């Protein structure tokens, strides 16, 4: 996954049925293209965390952020495209490997801190936890052997550093704060 021309938003949303549909519908309706979308529980009960990687930058993303805020279930949106952060993605890659190729694939996996999680007669599954960029590099090299099957979780990300104040990110939202002032 190339990161050029992409933006990353983190949205904290109410964990209600239908919220994912509403977010997805919003993106479709307003013409925002999703590069990846990851949803899971956050540290707060009842709040899910979405990591959304979208095509586009600048004003386009500002609009996207504002429209996300308009959804009643969306509690907070942060554009962390330019933040100092930890990016991780998990990939499972099934790579074709016969006989002697097998050890080459294992060596490649090790070089990327990957783990071989399944060994078959003519294929291996490598599990890789890394940044999307590193996963791209791995996939490019693994392509020499033949990538038979691939699944990726999509990016999850978190800003680095200490907690400045012990406050809930939910409380940080102020009406109208999501535009330049």
């Amino acid at each position, binding site marked *: 996954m190339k990161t050029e021309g992409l933006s990353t938003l983190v949205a904290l949303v109410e964990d209600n049925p239908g919220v994912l549909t509403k977010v997805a519908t919003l993106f479709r309706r307003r013409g925002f293209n999703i590069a990846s979308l990851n949803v899971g529980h956050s540290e707060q009960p009842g709040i899910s965390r979405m990591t959304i990687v979208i095509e586009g930058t600048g*004003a386009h993303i500002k609009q996207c952020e504002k429209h996300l805020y*308009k959804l*009643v279930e969306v*509690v907070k949106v942060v554009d962390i495209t330019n933040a100092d952060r930890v990016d991780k993605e998990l990939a499972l890659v099934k790579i074709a490997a016969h006989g002697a190729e097998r050890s080459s694939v294992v060596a490649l996996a090790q070089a990327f801190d990957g783990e071989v999680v399944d060994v078959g007669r003519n294929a291996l599954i490598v599990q890789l936890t890394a940044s999307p960029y590193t996963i791209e590099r791995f996939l490019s090299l693994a392509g020499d052997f033949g990538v038979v099957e691939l699944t990726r979780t999509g990016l999850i990300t978190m800003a680095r550093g200490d907690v400045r104040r012990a406050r809930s990110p939910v409380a940080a939202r102020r009406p*109208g704060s999501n*535009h*330049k*002032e």
Partner: protein
Amino acid sequence: MIDRKVRTGGSIICDVFLEEGVTAIFGMPGGASLPFYDALYDYPQIQHYLMRNEQGAGYAADGYARALNSVGVATSTSGPGATNLVTPIASAMMDSIPVVFLTGQVATPFIGTDAFQETDITGVTIPITKQNYLVKSVHELPRIMKEAFYLARSGRPGPVLVDVPKDVFLDETDEPVPESIELRGYKPAGAGHRRMIRKAAELIGQSERPVIMAGHGVAISGAFEELRELAEKAEIPVITTLHGVGDFPETHPLSFGMIGMHGMYYANMAVSECDLIIGLGLRFDDRVTGRVADFAPKAKIIHVDIDPAEIEKVVPTAVPIVGDVKATLQILNPLVSANTHTAWLEELNRLRTNHPSHEPPPNEEFLPQHMVRYIYEATEGEAIVVADVGQNQMWASQMFFYEKPYTFFSAGGLGGMGYALPAAMGVQVARPDQTVWCVTGDGGLQINIQELAAMAEYNIPVKVGVMNNAHLGMIRQWQNRFYNGRLMGAELINPDFAKVAEAFGIRGIRAETQDEARDAISQAMEFDGPVLVDFIVDELEDCYPMVEPGASLAETVER
């Protein structure tokens, strides 16, 4: 004190209606909503208007909401009833109208089984509602109903759909209705940011050629007095959007009418020549701006809107203010210095004298413009006008001078033909003391003509004026102008609408000349009850001024 009385879902809904001050609802029953209608039987305080198509019910609730600047209610059954509501829901979304749409749904065990009359209406309406709910348990219903009204009317208003399965109407709970609603993801703005407001006041003080553009937000927030104070204090000309008509008295010397594709020539020029726009509660719609790249080329823009997503959506803004128009003006007005703009106003007044877009052409023939002007003269402006969509809508805004708030309504955003007749009924129900004129075309009338039956049944004394030019007039105008006169699907072969009205039990009058039109209008005014006047107007009159698609406001074409 919390009331823990055990109630059915149906009773809870009716109780919330009463708490919210809703005394009239518009709808049609069906299988899935029968238990709700059974509950309604015990609430004689709530008048139910049986409309003849759910679309009519939705539009009537929209009119009711606009007339009272409060929440309207429309109801239908599941499946086809609910899908018939889709057009009025989309319209209310586009126009920020607070309507709660209550739909029946198949009973919870049947949801997802393609049961008879099952439609996933919450799925269908995600992009066209402010919020929607499928109520899965009666215990959630008190909170959801309260939330629905709160969301519909607060912030930027809009439609909220509550989909209630048949068994949930019947189930019982002692769950009370919450006194207030707190949503962590929804905090509507109050007054705008102080620093921005101070900056706005500075720009207003520096401007030599300012213009106020007043939109729907002025009416929604009830900022008429504040708008007038600002305009008079700093002597700033006021122009309005279509939904802003009525924000500012149109006979006021500082009023320069409506802007846009069929706006007043001088209003379009004022915006093209001004050095500052004070935009109050509007969204710079494409019908307002013309070619965006050349919109107000000399102007800085102050944009006040309660919806942050409207700021910089279309036009770049010098001073963005996210806030309620009324609350913002209450802070802004004292910061603005008294001022005069004599030269600027002279220039605009000269334009208005030389380009009187608000006057009907001096023809002997009975033109559509005359119809609206005669209604204005006969009512002395003391009427609410509900316009349909198309040429009739533009002439209804151009040829009548609206002096007061909430006197002109139109489905400007979605532009759904067929709006005016049922919406006018909703307006009349909400404002029984007012004269309500429905101005519609021969095309738009026939989209919801069945509602004449409800109008007769409930004796709703709307005066229906049909601007009958035997065409889909705006289609004909565009095909003539932009498609080399190749008329296709523009001509209408109509029934005799006066006779049709009579068959529905409504007084019908036909008027073919200027004199007959004046006479018909006074007859309609004198008659105590609904009247339909079929105005047979000149078939080929086109609507001007006009900003052609892709042109800028400065290129406004006159007749």
